[in-house]
C-alpha cells in the first residue's frame, strides 16, 4: 500500500512539474516537493544501480541495492574499485565494513526522520536559508531527469544541484557546489533499475568479518552525566543551525565516552564531538578538511572539541568558537 501511495505521489507531482516548469510563482514550492518525492522514493522503492562518486579529480565507483518490503528498509553500498569497503543499513543501524583496515563499525542513525519527510509546516525555517528552483531537464543513466537547484542564501552553507528521475523522482546525479559555483563533489548514476523486489542476498556483505576489529556503537548509549551534557552550550551558531540530536557513545573500541551533538539547518549537518583530554590521544586545534567535509578542532576546559560537517570551513569554525562550558 505504501508503494502505491508513493507511486501516485510521484506520478502526480511529476506530471504537474513537467507542465508547470515555466510557472515562476510555484517554483520554490514545486522544487521542494520534488525533493520530498526524491526522499520518499529513495526509502520506499526497490532499486539497484551503479554510480560514480567524484571528488578532487578522483573517481570511485560503487553499487547500491535498496530494498523495502513494507516490513523493513535496507540498503547496501559497495565500493567497486580500490579498497574493499561496504556499508549496510538495516533500518537505522548502519554497519561499515572496511576490509582494507580490517575494521567493522556499527552505529545508529542520529535522527530517524529527515526534514524532507516531515510536515510542510517544518519547512519555513529551512526555506530561509536556501532558494529552491527547477532549472531544466537533462538525461542521466539513459533516463530523463529534472534538475533542481538549491542555492544557499549565505556563506555558511554549500549549494546543490540534483538531477531527479522524471519517472520515479530518484536522484540520478548530484553536485555539491562551492562558493564559486564549481562542484566540490559529484555523484552520478551510470545505471539504475527500479524493480519490484531485491533479493535479500544482495544485502548481505561480500566480506566476512573475521579477524577484524569491531566497534559497536549502536547499543552503547552511555549513561550520561546529565550535568556534564547540559554544561555544554552553543552560544552563537550560524543562522539556521539547530541542535537535532545528542548522545554519548564510544567511537572506537577501547575508547572512552564521547559526547556527540548534531546540528542541522535542514539540509546540511554538523557533528560536534567532545571528549576529555587524555594522554593516549593527540590534541589538535584549528582547521582542516577531508574531502567535502571540513573540520575544526579546539580545546575547551580540558576537553578536545572537534566539529565536523559538509559545510564551509567558516561554519565549523564558528560552531567550534561558539561552544562554551558552563558550570
Amino acid at each position, binding site marked *: 500500500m505504501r508503494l502505491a501511495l508513493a507511486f501516485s505521489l510521484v506520478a502526480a507531482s511529476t506530471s504537474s512539474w513537467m507542465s508547470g516548469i515555466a510557472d515562476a510563482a510555484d517554483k520554490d514550492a514545486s522544487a521542494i516537493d520534488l525533493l520530498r518525492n526524491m526522499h520518499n522514493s529513495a526509502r520506499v522503492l526497490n532499486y539497484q544501480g551503479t554510480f560514480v*562518486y567524484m571528488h578532487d579529480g578522483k573517481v570511485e565507483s560503487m553499487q547500491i541495492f535498496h530494498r523495502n518490503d513494507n516490513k523493513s528498509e535496507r540498503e547496501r553500498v559497495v565500493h567497486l574499485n580500490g579498497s574493499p569497503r561496504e556499508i549496510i543499513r538495516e533500518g537505522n543501524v548502519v554497519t561499515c565494513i572496511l576490509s582494507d*583496515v580490517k575494521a567493522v563499525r556499527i552505529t545508529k542513525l542520529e535522527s530517524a526522520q529527515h526534514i524532507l519527510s516531515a510536515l510542510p509546516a517544518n519547512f519555513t525555517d529551512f526555506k530561509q536559508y536556501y532558494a529552491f528552483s527547477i532549472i531544466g531537464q537533462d538525461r542521466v543513466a539513459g533516463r530523463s531527469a529534472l534538475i533542481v537547484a538549491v542555492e544557499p542564501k549565505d556563506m555558511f552553507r554549500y549549494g546543490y544541484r540534483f538531477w531527479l528521475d522524471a519517472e520515479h523522482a530518484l536522484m540520478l546525479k548530484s553536485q555539491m557546489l562551492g562558493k*564559486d559555483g564549481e562542484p566540490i563533489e559529484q555523484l552520478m548514476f551510470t545505471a539504475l533499475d527500479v524493480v519490484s523486489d531485491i533479493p535479500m542476498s544482495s544485502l548481505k556483505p561480500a566480506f566476512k568479518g573475521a579477524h577484524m576489529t569491531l566497534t559497536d556503537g549502536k547499543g552503547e548509549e552511555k549513561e550520561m552525566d546529565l550535568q556534564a551534557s547540559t554544561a555544554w552550550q552553543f552560544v552563537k551558531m550560524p543562522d539556521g543551525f539547530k541542535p537535532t540530536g545528542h548522545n554519548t557513545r564510544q567511537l572506537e573500541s577501547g575508547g572512552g565516552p564521547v559526547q556527540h551533538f548534531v546540528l542541522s539547518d535542514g539540509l546540511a549537518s554538523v557533528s560536534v564531538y567532545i571528549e576529555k583530554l587524555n594522554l593516549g590521544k593527540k590534541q*589538535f*586545534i*584549528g582547521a582542516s578538511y577531508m574531502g567535502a567535509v571540513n573540520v575544526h578542532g579546539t580545546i*575547551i576546559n580540558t576537553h578536545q572539541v572537534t566539529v565536523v560537517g559538509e559545510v564551509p570551513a567558516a561554519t565549523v569554525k564558528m560552531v567550534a568558537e561558539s561552544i*562554551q562550558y558552563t558550570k
Partner: protein
Amino acid sequence: MTDTNKAIEQHASVIDGEIGDRAGERLSSLVDGELSSVEYEHAVKAVEQDVELKRRWERYHIAADSLKNNLPPLITKSNFADRVMLAIESEPTVFAPRNLSRKVNSVVKQVAGLAVAASVTAAAVFGVQSWQGTEVAAPVAQVFPPMQPMANPSVTTVADTSAQVPENLKSQLNNYLLNHNQSVMGFNGMLPYARIVGYSTSETAE
C-alpha cells in the same frame, strides 16, 4: 610596557576598537609576561574560557609577529629555552593558516577559496586521504604550563612547514569522519556512504 609592546597594543587596539578595559589590560600583561604566577594562572584560565579574549590574544600575536618580523616579545625572558622545550613536548597539533602560493596544487587552492575565513589551512591532501597539519615548530610565544594548551594558531605562521599528521591523530580524525557520515541521514541517502567508501586511511595514495 616596552615601547614595542606599546606599539603592538595600539595596533591591536585598532583591531579591537577597545582600549584599556580590565580584562584587556590583564591580557596584555600576560602577553608581556608581567604577571605573578597566581595572576598568570587566572589570566590563562580566563583567556581559555572566553572566546573574545582568546581572539584578542590571537590578534596581539598576529600584530606582534608582523611588527617584529616574527620574533615574539617573550624571547628575552629567562628560562626561555627550558619552557619552550616543555611546551613543545606537550604541544597540541595546530593546523596553521598558511599563505597560499602558486606552488599549492589546484585542488587545495580551490577548496581553500571556498572558505571565507582567511585562516583555512591548505593542509589536508584530498587524494591521499590523510589529515595533514602543520606541526608547531618553535612555538616561542606559547609559553604555558604543559597542562593548559591553548589555541594560538597565529604563532605557527612563523613556521611555514607542513608535516604529516601523526598516525594516531589521523585515525582519530577518521573516526569522527566515519561516525559523522554514518550517523547523519543525508536527504538522498547515499552521499554520506559514498564519502565513507571513497576514503581510505592507508598511507599509500591510490
